[in-house]
């Protein structure tokens, strides 16, 4: 009984980080697909991606380790590879954000709105006009 309890506890302790990150990821993902406002979509996309970054960094963490910079007293370093990957991914993310936001500004200029359903209605009207 006791051992089952500690097993579950150990399992939860070993994974709580991933679980919370999954919740965050999914909240961001929800904002992307459910929001009708384009700016909010981009914010959601960023939250989604940032949460994935936290997942990667959690993969690279070693308990009791230190930052992977050579240091006289350190004996255990955390894994540097996920850090490198996420550095790349962060920059890719900001590039996408910049492009997405400038598209939004042009859409606002062209349609006078940044609400998805209004734009959709305008586009459909245009489709029928043709």
């Amino acid at each position: 009984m006791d051992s089952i309890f500690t097993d579950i506890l150990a399992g939860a302790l070993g994974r709580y980080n991933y679980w919370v990150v999954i919740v965050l990821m999914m909240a961001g993902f929800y904002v992307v697909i459910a929001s009708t406002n384009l700016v909010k979509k981009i914010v959601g996309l960023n939250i989604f991606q940032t949460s994935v970054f936290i997942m990667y960094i959690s993969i690279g963490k070693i308990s009791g380790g230190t930052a992977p910079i050579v240091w006289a007293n350190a004996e255990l370093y955390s894994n540097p590879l996920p850090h490198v990957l996420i550095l790349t991914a962060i920059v890719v993310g900001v590039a996408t954000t910049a492009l997405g936001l400038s598209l939004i500004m042009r859409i606002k200029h062209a349609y006078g709105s940044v609400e998805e359903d209004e734009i959709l209605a305008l586009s459909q009207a245009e489709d029928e006009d043709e």
Partner: protein
Amino acid sequence: MLLCEQQTPRGLNQLPRKKTEMELAVNITLLLMLCATVFAVVKLQSLFAIVMLFGIYSLLSAMIFVALDAVDVAFTEAAVGAGISTVLMLATLVTTGRWKKKPERSGLLPLFVVTITGAALVWGTLDMPEYGNPANPAHHHVADRYIAESPTEIGIPNMVTSVLASYRGFDTLGEVIVVFTALVGVLSLLQVRRPRTFARKQDNRPDTHRRRPYPVLQVVALIMMPFIIVFALYVQFHGDFGPGGGFQAGVIFAVAFILYTLTYGLDDSLALTPLPALKILAAGGVIIYGGTGVVSMLLGGNFLDYNVLAANPVSGQHIGIIVIELGVGITVASVLITVFYAFVTRAERNRAGEKQVDLPNKAD
């Protein structure tokens, strides 16, 4: 968790154990704060609040990165996510308005998709390697060599920089190209122009549309700018030894000019950093990086093989890393400055045209 406590090797004092518990507490607190932020984002209607919350989200995740030993990533996330992304989003709000018009549609289908995806992930975590366990497969095989060999093979203490610039140098070139691609995209969508030119066209007020001077802010900005630039240079060239490198430096450098633009206006800052120069620098940084690869090819190595750049492989690596980090810094800084100018141009254009005020005149 239990396993790793046995394996923590240091026996000088009881510090490691204490540290792990402390880390756990910090971690959980930060994660809870992240959750709260995210749910506020889901619920709120005010875009301004959503964007600010995203900045907070980014800053909090940067703190988590510090707690998880990823100092370089934390630095980048704080500068890029909480800094540049938020600034760009705010600049967009100037054009698009700050309030969502309608409440969300009832999102049953999205909710379904999200629940399925999340459930799949949670199901998958059940037999994932435990968080933080040093025996996890992720920490062996490839990562071992980076930790054990890079200080002697590459000769710099920051392993993240070694891996980023040398072992996976081609990824980083790709990343610089992505930034450059974003510049191409933004420039094709938005023009960068001096606001004076089209504001004049709109109405012939003499010079009143020019920003009223902001004495306090302008003085503070002027005091700050040299320090920001010195700090950027420090981050640029100290990246081998501590956290930092071309990306972070480029972002900080760009921030100095963003501050200048915010306080002095686009006219003045375009006079300081003319657009053609920025474009040449943005392309130039990519060419410096790629050129290093081409030179190493011409000297008989593979693309981006810095060993051949000097007689001694380690000093070759040093030269290579310094040069490519410089290329990264130049491109990132000039791209971000240009993108910001493009966003501001669009906002100014809006201001010159129809003036829309959609700020509810209430405290709450």
